[in-house]
């Protein structure tokens, strides 16, 4: 049989079927975990950008409980943003945004205070930027810059400036050595914020 012309084709077919079925089996087996991991990182990202919701020392279960109890799902008044209340009044919005990064989509949550102008934080829960370069957007050093910035009414709600430049109240420093990631991220954040502000304004009328 081995000398037959069709043998290599049959062999390839069997080998492929065998290895593929193992891969399918393993990914089915781990699917729930993968989905749970994604959901968990999203929940934690939402908590992290809202003032007073996140605790570095809290375990995964505790954070999940907080998300369930304290965070309100998006409704028609928040234009797609998750919200948190304090003393019965709306305290801040957590707006999920996403767009194309350098390699793959960047997914983030941006926190905005009840005044709809002050940024309370940014967290990235899914990104595949270059490790060590673009991926520095996930560091606390980069993310903490956003805290307290005021969304500008100009063409760009937030502006990325060259590292070392003097910053205004709506400016943050870009990542050194990651021009592409910085430019794309600036666009993602600004488009996200603009769309949201527009929707909020429409909702208010």
């Amino acid at each position: 049989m081995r000398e037959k012309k069709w043998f290599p084709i049959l062999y390839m077919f069997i080998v492929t079927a065998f290895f593929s079925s193992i891969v399918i089996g393993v990914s089915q087996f781990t699917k729930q975990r993968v989905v749970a991991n994604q959901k968990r990182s999203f929940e934690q990202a939402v908590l992290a950008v809202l003032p007073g919701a996140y605790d570095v020392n809290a375990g995964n279960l505790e954070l999940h409980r907080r998300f369930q109890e304290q965070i309100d799902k998006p409704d028609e008044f928040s234009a797609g943003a998750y919200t948190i209340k304090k003393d019965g009044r709306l305290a801040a919005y957590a707006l999920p945004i996403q767009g194309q990064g350098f390699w793959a989509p960047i997914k983030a949550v941006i926190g905005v205070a009840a005044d709809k102008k002050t940024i309370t934080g940014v967290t990235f829960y899914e990104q595949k930027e270059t490790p060590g370069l673009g991926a520095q957007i996930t560091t606390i050093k980069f993310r903490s810059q956003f805290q307290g910035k005021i969304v500008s009414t100009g063409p760009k709600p937030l502006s990325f400036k060259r590292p070392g430049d003097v910053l205004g109240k709506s400016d943050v420093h870009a990542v050194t050595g990651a021009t592409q990631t910085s430019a794309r991220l600036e666009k993602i954040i600004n488009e996200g914020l603009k769309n949201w502000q527009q929707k909020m304004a429409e909702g208010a009328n």
Partner: protein
Amino acid sequence: MAVAGEKSEINKIISDGIWQSNPIFKQVLGICSTLAVTNLVLNTMVMCIALAFTLSLSAATVSAMRRSTPRNVRMMVETLIIAFYVIIVDVLLKAYWPQMSNSLGPYVGLIITNCIVMGRCEAYANSQPIGRAFLDGLFNALGYSFVLLIIAVFRELFGMGTLLGYQMPYFSGPHWGKWIIMVMPPGAFFMLAIVTWILRSIQMTREDKQK
């Protein structure tokens, strides 16, 4: 006699993989991943472990199937086996170590195209018994790992002033102007060239002495 022969063969596999024909500085294979992941020591370590897993098991599997695989489709079969192990690593990282999966980004998938894996399967595994093929894969991966770790330690230390993410004395201080270029792709070329140069020089001096 047979036992002694087996032992010397294993010694040869070890010394070839790690030193004599080291995949990075002697065979100059797998350079793409060397350049890509070595700006952080932690990423490098995980990459090395993933490669060791893929390389040793692919070699063993290729070796196990060597008698039944028709010669004209052997490279397709090898690629398939390599891709199989890489996907398994990727899926397991996603499920059990999502942070690392995030920070390695697209590089895990790129192990499939790492020339070392294909190179060892073609050059060794498809004509040798399973045990030897496994060891050959493992020691080649270790040879790859130690060179990568040397590069990564210097790149992270000089470029960011940290090691494994921890601030290092002096290098993270104000007296050390961080060499940003070390964490950027060009820094990898410089470091790789320097490390290759040094290790090759040591190797050559030793060979001269033996003559």
